[in-house]
Structures are given as structure tokens and as C-alpha cells.
């Protein structure tokens, strides 16, 4: 656990964490040792000269004072370390996330990452503050007390010592057997959450079928599975808790019996026996709390494991000596990219001379967007190469590569801020005049005029306050401002109504002028004017050539084209 914590944190935090752990351990030992002084105190009080207890009481008081000082320091140190860790963890996670390839960020990842980076970090770091000290003290103090007992009375001490391996074994065994159940439970929860989302999103259709009156089977099954998994967890946790309690109580009973026997036999003083029984009672509580602390630790551990998994994901390797490409032609050389065992891009070779436009067409799922993503190095190819200006994109530094490419996607994400801020992102150093010019070229100026607040209008989280077409115009303005030699367009106009489409097209036209362009589109009309068209299916190039040439050939492209031209049928 600590080892994983340290790995997740990175080594600069190893020292303070170790120091805190050491401090907490020392505190727990001090607590146990201070109890050693109870024996002479009680011996005196229970004996004939109770006044003889005073010096021992003073000694015990001193020991408690030492313990108090240690405890106070270790508590504060725990808080301090946790804060430092929190900061370090956030930074480390942030830095790492920024370095991970874009291809890593799927739709499911976004949700996971935001939860992990928000609550997850805090939860895992609170382990140090809230769980570590009780856990250490529950383990170490009883052990120290047993050592004290051993020193005072061999047989009773030995009897108590028997508990140690038993408790340890039960703890380890419970931990192991619970891990699988926890995992399963996590999975069931996840599954049920998915079903709830599905159920909510499918409400209109479900209601149409009258299917929400009865329980919806898919959801209800998932909910029942959650309950079953949680019951299994409870039942499998029970032996552990019972075992622990039984072990602790059996030993206590043994001490009670043995102590009584020894006291009756007169071999041991009554005061010793009673003190040892008081100490034994002192051991029992922390030991019994181990099972609940263990459960909480396991919870924190699973968050930690997920953090660890993210942090151990390797970013794409950076070239040690980045090359600056001088030209801006593009080339795929037998590029292969796999997703699992499926080849999404299966040996594509093509080249786009500088300043030319390539259109990529094909059925959905053909790998069109992936082609663009390989150019921008969201992923690295599994075979072959992708080159910009004759240089493998893996040899170009990320910053340089990104500086050469402007991308416009179908879904535009805007940051919660003003329109101007979002446009400026294209080139933070641009003058106001340049920003205005880019906005005008993207026909964003019409939008800005309409909005209350104009340039300073807030776009909302993710750009939610703008319509799809308006967001698209922002992203085009951004790309125009960036003024990169290579432009990648992914289904830019397919989700727009004709009025917005016209505006966006004008912007796009200006964006494409004089640049090397690769565009993915299914509105074939927008494809016509490309210098060359590639028809992609199943990750391979099926046809390529100019528009007229492909139409004459009468193959897949021609079929697609004709489909899109068929006029609306009337009954």
C-alpha cells in the first residue's frame, strides 16, 4: 500500500512520507511503552502502600507527556504531508495528462479522468491523514503492549503473543479474498450506471413502447446484480470480521482463565494479573477496529490503483533531436494502425503535395478520422510511417508539429470564457486587428454582433451558449488566426443547417487557400473541388483520383455520389 502510494507520488515525496510513517510508528510504540508504567503504579495502589504510587505516577505522567508531544507532532505532520502530497499529486497528474497522446482520451476516459483528477486525488491523499495513523497505531500499540506483558510475565505474555500471527493471517486473508469481490462490485456498479444512462436517454422510445410502466428488464437486472454483488461482499467480509473478533476474544478469554489460574495458585501477584488484564483490554479495541480500517484502506487503495494506472500510461515518445520540416507536403507510407486486433488503417499509402487538397470519403467506420488523427499524432502508427515535409512525424517535436497544423472538427469544444479568449487561443500573441480580421473571415463577426456583450460574451462551459454553427465559426476563426501551413478538416459542415453551412463554407474556403489540406467529408458536394479524392473502406484505399475521373469509373465513389443526388421520393 505504502509502496504504491510512493510510486504514485513519485520519489521526491518518499522522504517526508517515510518520516511521517516513522513518527506515527514511534508514537504508537511510545503509547504501548507508557503502559509499562501502569504495572508499578497499580502494584502500589493495590498493595498495602498506596502512597508509593506517587513517583511511578509522575513517571507515567512524564511518559504520557512524551506521547502527547509525539502524537501532536505526528498528527500535524500527517496533515502537512497530506497537503504537500495533494499539491504534488495534482501537479503530477496535470503534467502527465497534458503529455498523454490525444488518442488516449476516449469518451469514457473523459469522465473517468475528471472524477479522478477531482475527488479521486483528495480521497487517496486523505489516506495519510485519516487512516494511516489509526492503522499503524492499531497494529503497533498492541504489539508493544504484548512485549511489555512478556517482560512482566512470560506465560501470560506468550499467551497474548499467540494472537499476533492469527490476527495478521486473518487480516491478510480477508484482504485477498475481498479484493476480488470489491473488483466485481465496482464492475457491477459501473454496469448499472451505464444502464441508468441508457435508460434515461432511451426514455422517449421506451415510453412509446409503454415499457416504463413495467420494470425495464435491462436496467432492473443490472440493479439486482448490484444488490447481489453487495450481498456477496457482505457475506465474504463476514468470516474475516468474525475471525478477527474470535481470535482477539479467544486470546482475551485465555488470558482471563490463565490469569485467574496463576493468581489463585499464588505464583503471580494479583496486581500483575489485574494490570495485564487491563492492558489486554487495551489491546482488544484497536485490534477489533482493524477490520473497519482495513475496509476503508481497500477503498482508498482502489482509487490509488486507478491513479497509478493513469500515471503509468506512457506518453508518446518525444524525439531526442527534433527535426524541423522545411516543406509541408504530407505522406502516408504503408501506414498501419491497430485498435486491439482490428486494423483501423490497413496499409495506406498516399501523398499530398504542398498546397493541394485531399478529400477523404467513405462509409462511416472506414477510418477517415483516424487518418487525420495519425497526421496530428493523436496516435503513433503500428507500421509504416506518416511524414510531414518528408520528416516522420515521430521525429518532429510535438510543439513544432502542432504549430504546423490547424484542425477543425465537427464537434467544437470551447473553453468557458469570452469569444475573444477562445479565438485568441489560435495565436495568443496576435494583435487585436488580426483577431478581428480572422473573425470577419470566418463570418464570426455576424455572430458577435448578435450576442449581448459582443466580443466579451461568455460562451459557457464547452461553448454550450452558442449554437453548433456558431461554435464552428469560432473554431474556424481560431484556425485562421493560427495561420498554420497544414489544415485538417473533419466533417466540418455535416451537422449544420444550410444557412450556417454557407457561412462556415466561406470561412473554410479562406482557411484552405494556399495551404495543404486533408478533409474528411460525407457531403460529397463539398468534396468536389478537392484536387484529389480518396475513397476509404475498411482502413484501405479502395479508389482514388479526381472527381470526374472517379465518376466515370462508376465504382464505389460514383455509387455514393449518385445516392446523395437521388431526389426525395414522393409516394
Amino acid at each position, binding site marked *: 500500500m505504502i509502496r504504491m502510494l510512493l510510486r504514485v507520488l513519485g520519489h521526491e515525496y518518499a522522504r517526508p512520507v517515510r518520516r511521517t510513517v516513522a513518527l506515527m510508528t514511534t508514537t504508537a510504540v511510545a503509547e504501548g511503552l507508557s503502559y509499562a508504567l501502569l504495572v508499578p503504579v497499580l502494584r502500589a495502589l493495590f498493595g498495602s502502600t498506596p502512597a508509593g504510587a506517587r513517583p511511578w505516577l509522575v513517571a507515567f505522567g512524564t511518559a504520557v507527556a512524551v506521547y502527547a508531544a509525539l502524537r501532536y507532532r505526528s498528527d500535524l505532520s500527517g496533515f502537512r504531508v497530506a497537503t504537500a502530497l495533494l499539491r504534488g499529486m495534482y501537479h503530477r497528474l496535470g503534467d502527465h495528462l497534458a503529455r498523454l497522446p490525444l488518442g488516449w482520451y476516449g469518451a469514457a476516459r473523459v469522465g473517468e479522468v475528471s472524477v479522478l483528477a477531482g475527488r479521486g486525488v483528495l480521497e487517496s491523499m486523505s489516506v495519510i491523514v485519516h487512516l494511516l495513523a489509526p492503522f499503524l497505531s492499531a497494529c503497533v500499540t498492541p504489539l508493544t503492549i504484548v512485549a511489555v506483558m512478556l517482560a512482566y510475565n512470560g506465560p501470560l505474555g506468550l499467551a497474548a503473543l499467540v494472537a499476533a500471527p492469527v490476527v495478521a493471517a486473518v487480516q491478510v486473508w480477508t484482504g485477498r479474498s475481498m479484493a476480488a469481490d470489491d473488483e466485481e462490485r465496482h464492475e457491477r456498479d459501473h454496469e448499472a450506471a451505464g444502464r441508468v444512462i441508457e435508460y434515461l436517454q432511451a426514455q422517449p422510445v421506451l*415510453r412509446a413502447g409503454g415499457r416504463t410502466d413495467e420494470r425495464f428488464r435491462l436496467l432492473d437486472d443490472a440493479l439486482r446484480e448490484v444488490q447481489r454483488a453487495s450481498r456477496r461482499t457482505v457475506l465474504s467480509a463476514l468470516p474475516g470480521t468474525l475471525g478477527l473478533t474470535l481470535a482477539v476474544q479467544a486470546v482475551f478469554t485465555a488470558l482471563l482463565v490463565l490469569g485467574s489460574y496463576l493468581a489463585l495458585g499464588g505464583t503471580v501477584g494479583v496486581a500483575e494479573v489485574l494490570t495485564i488484564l487491563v492492558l489486554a483490554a487495551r489491546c482488544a479495541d484497536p485490534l477489533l477496529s482493524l477490520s473497519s480500517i482495513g475496509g476503508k484502506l481497500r477503498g482508498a487503495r482502489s482509487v490509488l490503483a486507478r491513479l497509478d494506472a493513469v500515471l503509468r500510461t506512457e506518453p508518446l515518445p518525444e524525439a531526442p533531436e527534433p527535426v524541423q520540416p522545411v516543406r509541408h507536403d504530407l505522406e502516408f507510407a504503408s501506414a498501419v494502425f491497430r485498435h486491439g486486433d482490428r486494423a483501423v488503417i490497413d496499409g495506406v499509402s498516399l501523398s499530398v503535395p504542398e498546397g493541394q487538397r485531399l478529400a477523404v470519403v467513405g462509409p462511416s467506420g472506414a477510418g477517415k478520422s483516424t487518418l487525420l488523427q495519425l497526421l496530428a499524432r493523436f496516435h503513433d502508427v503500428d507500421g509504416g510511417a506518416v511524414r510531414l515535409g518528408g520528416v516522420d512525424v515521430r521525429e518532429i517535436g510535438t510543439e513544432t508539429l502542432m504549430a504546423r497544423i490547424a484542425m477543425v472538427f465537427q464537434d467544437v469544444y470551447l473553453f468557458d470564457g469570452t469569444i475573444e479568449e477562445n479565438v485568441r487561443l489560435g495565436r495568443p500573441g496576435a494583435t487585436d486587428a488580426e483577431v478581428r480580421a480572422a473573425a470577419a473571415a470566418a463570418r464570426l463577426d455576424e455572430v458577435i454582433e448578435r450576442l449581448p456583450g459582443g466580443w466579451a460574451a461568455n460562451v459557457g462551459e464547452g461553448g454550450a451558449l452558442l449554437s453548433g454553427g456558431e461554435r464552428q465559426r469560432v473554431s474556424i476563426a481560431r484556425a485562421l488566426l493560427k495561420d498554420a501551413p497544414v489544415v485538417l478538416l473533419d466533417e466540418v459542415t455535416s451537422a449544420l443547417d444550410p444557412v450556417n453551412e454557407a457561412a462556415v463554407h466561406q470561412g473554410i474556403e479562406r482557411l484552405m487557400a494556399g495551404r495543404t489540406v486533408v478533409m474528411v467529408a460525407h457531403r460529397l458536394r463539398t468534396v468536389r473541388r478537392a484536387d484529389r479524392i480518396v475513397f476509404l473502406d475498411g482502413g484501405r484505399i479502395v479508389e482514388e483520383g479526381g472527381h470526374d475521373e472517379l465518376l466515370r469509373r462508376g465504382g464505389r465513389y460514383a455509387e455514393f455520389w449518385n445516392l446523395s443526388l437521388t431526389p426525395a421520393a414522393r409516394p
Partner: protein
Amino acid sequence: MWSFAAVVLLQVIGALAGLAPLLAVVELGRVLLSPGPVDHGRVWTVVVAGAAGLLVRLLFTAASSGIGHLVDGQVQLALRRRLAARLGRVPIGWLSRRRTGELAKVVGDDVSAVHPFIAHAPGELVAAFVVPLVSLVYLFTVDWRLTLITLAPVVLAVALVPLMMTPARLREQKEFDAGMGRISNAAVEFAQGIAVVKAFGGAGRAHRRFRTAADEFTDTFLRWVRGMAPIAAGMQLALSPPFVLLVVLVGGAALITNGAMEPAGLLPFLLLGLGLTAPVAALGHGFDDLQAARRAVGRIGDVLAVQPLPEPAHPVAPQGHRVELRGVRFGYEGGHEVLRGIDLVLEPGTVTAVVGPSGSGKSTLVQLLPRFFDPTHGSVVLGGADLREIGGRELYRTVSFVFQDVRLLRASVADNIALAVPHAGHDDVVRAARLADIHDRILELPRGYASVIGEDAGLSGGEAQRIAIARALLADAPVLVLDEATAFADPQTEQAVRRALAALAGDRTVLVIAHRLETIADADTVVMLENGAVVERGAPAELLARDGRFAAFWQAHRSAVAGESDAPRGDEPR
């Protein structure tokens, strides 16, 4: 309910039985320390009683915890089912304005967060108070002076509580919560905007924002900790066993040396005194969880309190499927009206196309037909009956719709197509799939119509859209509402939509939000919507001839499409 009582009762009995071994030690001390010969029989009785107490405690607490968790599981399932049932009846409009992720969190995490309330709190809290109370009464009977002394650490700890509630502390707590919120937002933005961040290179603004939020949060956290930590640590110290023992021993030693108390009287305090701190500790520990649980229960209550659209007491069956909108007004929030007095008649056997600029209220208008919302004024009448008087089931059987966002369930392809008609025969499903031009693709899937979407097979956007079309075709409702999606993913799908429209027409009442000029031209009636009101209506040719708003809109459309290419009707731009 009895199971709750059982959980509490078992827990209390178990916890009280846990006192037996401690009392046994006390008794043992009394017997052994008493002057004169030791009564062996009594010693062994005491030992047996102590051991028996332990056994009872083991059995009862285990039973209590086991039952508690099982009840918890049942309660959670029941709660989730209630939530699901309610969510299945709330207005669709309410759903559409909420993030599904948040609602899923209510059904999932929030219900789970109730766990301590049910499984732990009743038993453990009661035990945490009953046991110390019993101990306290017992200790008073032993020696009231030493009892008061034993209580000193508890009083000390409680005295520190107000220090945690000072305005400064409370403000820090608030800042802490706000900081947590900011960091979550920054994390979401960071993860979602990562593509933009990377594409535009540089240090990355979102990254910086996340870092700033994280730094601010840790600063707040540090301030909070700095204020809180010494008090918390002080409290912990006051309640710590060595300190309590020290207090008891000092007090006890004073009483014993003065001859005010029997030495044996000290033992119960050493053994039971520590237990007196339990309630304070329990409050501290359980408090956070309980707070979280309370907030979760609040959110669950909010969802359960949403009123479903009222169902008619005496449902009326619509006669025919003529649709009329009479003086319909609607606003999502008070004040701002999206629809401002719409009168519209949709005749069976005709296609009505709604056109208009974005934000004109088109989507809202068509969503009133399947009763996603009720109009704030006026009424929507189907076959002579107000929608509000038609039973939900009847309504959905009469009105079917294809909207832009297609949702497929992780279920078999056949189930997905038959979602609205659960008892449809396989042949009907196949016929619908053929019409929607998706049949061949389905046969290519590993298990054909039995393939589970998302497990056996992933479908592309266009394919999913065609499944949705097949769904509507199978539903075969006399009134069809269609948002002619602007984002149909490929030409094949666009073609399928057009074919479906053609196949569906006939005697149906069709209302379509039209985006394509072809659809508009082929409609029987065009309704031009602007700013929530109908500005023009009539046959498309007639409206064009009138040369008004629609004609202008049409021209703008045409040049928009033509501007980039040759439109199908062939005016070559360049």
C-alpha cells in the same frame, strides 16, 4: 421495519454483552483483592460469565452487522427501483434539460451514500450512546467522585468543539467546498478540452487553469488544515487512552491514599472509563459520512419529488389522427416564451414541413406532439382529444418520432428495433430493417439480429441512425414527427430517411423539421416559423410565388447550398 429494529436491538445487546468481560475483570479484582481467603468457585463463575459475554457479543454484533448490510442492499434496490420508476414518468422535457450523468449519479452513488444511514448509523450510533450511558450509571454507583474526574477528558474535548465552529473556521470550510467544486470543473474542462489544448500547442491554457485551481485548492486546504489541525489534534489527545488513564489514575490514587475509596474500586474506571469517550469519537468519525449521506438523500428526494406529467383520470381515445395546435404558447422558464401563440392544423395524409432560422422554436414545437412538455397556454389536440386527456400509452402508440440523437441500447439488434413494439414478430423486424436499408449490414454482424450492440458489434453513426429509422417504421404509428437530422452520417442513411418518409406517408399525419430543400419542396404545407410565431404558411409553390419571408429563406438556402457546389437541380456556380 422490524428488521431495522432487529439490527439496532442486536447491536445494542451485543455491545452491552461486550461489557461483560470487563466487568469480569472488575469482579475478579474485587474477589482477589478482598482480604481473607479467596473464593475459588466465585472466581471461576466470574471467568465463565466474562467468556460467555464475549461469545454473546460476537454472535449478536455479527448478526446485527450481517442483517444491517443485507437490509441495506434491499433498501438500496428498492430506492433505485423507485427512482427508475419515477424517472420513467417525469416529463421528457425535464429529462432533456438535465445531464444524464448527474441523474445516473443520483441512482448510483447517491443511493450508495445512504449506506451508513442504514447499515451502520442506527446500530452503531445507538450502541455508541447506550453503552457509555450504562457504563456511566454503573460507575456512578461505584464512586461518583472518580466518575466526575473520569469525565474530565470528555468535557475537555467537547470544550474544543466551539473552536471548530468559529466564523473563520466555517468560512474556510465553505472555501474548501467551493475550491473542490472549482477543481472538479477545471478537471472536466481539462479532460474535455485536451484536444484543443494540444492542437494549439504552447503551455496549454486548460492545463494552467487546472494547475491554478489545484494550487488554490491546496492553499485553501492548507489554511483549513492549519486552522483545524491543532484543534483536531488536541481533541484526539484529550480522548487518547494514555491521557484518560492518567487522569483516572491520578484521581484514583488521590482517593485511595486518602482512604476515600477501596483500591478495587479503581478497576472499573480503568476498564470502563475509556469507553465514555466513544460517543464523542463516534460523532467525529461518523459525522462526515452522515453529512454526505444527508446531502445524497436530499438529491434523491429532489428527483422523487419531480411531478410526472399528470395522467388523465378518465383517458379519452382519440378519434382519427388529425392534429391541431390551438393558441399554443410555451416557455421553458417563466418570462421568456419560446412559442408565442401557434395555431396549426395537420391533416392526415399530408406532410407539413416546419422551416425557420435556428432558435425560432422549431424543435420545441415538434416536441409538444409526443408530449415532452405541456403547453403553458392553449392546447394540442389529437383526434379531437386534448393530449392531456389521452393516456400516455395510447399517445405513444399514436405518435412516433425520429429525433436527431440516436440512442441504441446495449441489447440485441432485434430488441433495439422492436423497442417500441416489444411483441413484434421477427418478420416484421426484418421488414422494417430492409426498408431502412440496414438489413444487409445486420446480417454481416457476427450473430445477425441477435448480435448485442456494443458487445458483439459496434455500429457507425449512420448505421445507428438507420436502426432508429427501422424502429419508427416498425412502430407504424399514424402520426409521425421527424426532425430531419442535419447530421445524417452518410449518403446511404440520407437515402434511407427519404425512402422511409415515402413509405411512411400514405394516410399518416407527418410533421417534419425540414433542412433539405427537397423535403421542403415536396411538403404539402410549409410553415415558416420565426421567433416563436408562424409568419407564413401554405403550399411551397404558392409561398414562393408570394415572394415573402419564405421565398427569401428559400433563396438564402439555395445560394447557401449552391455556393459550394452544384445543387441537384443544377445551377453550376463557377
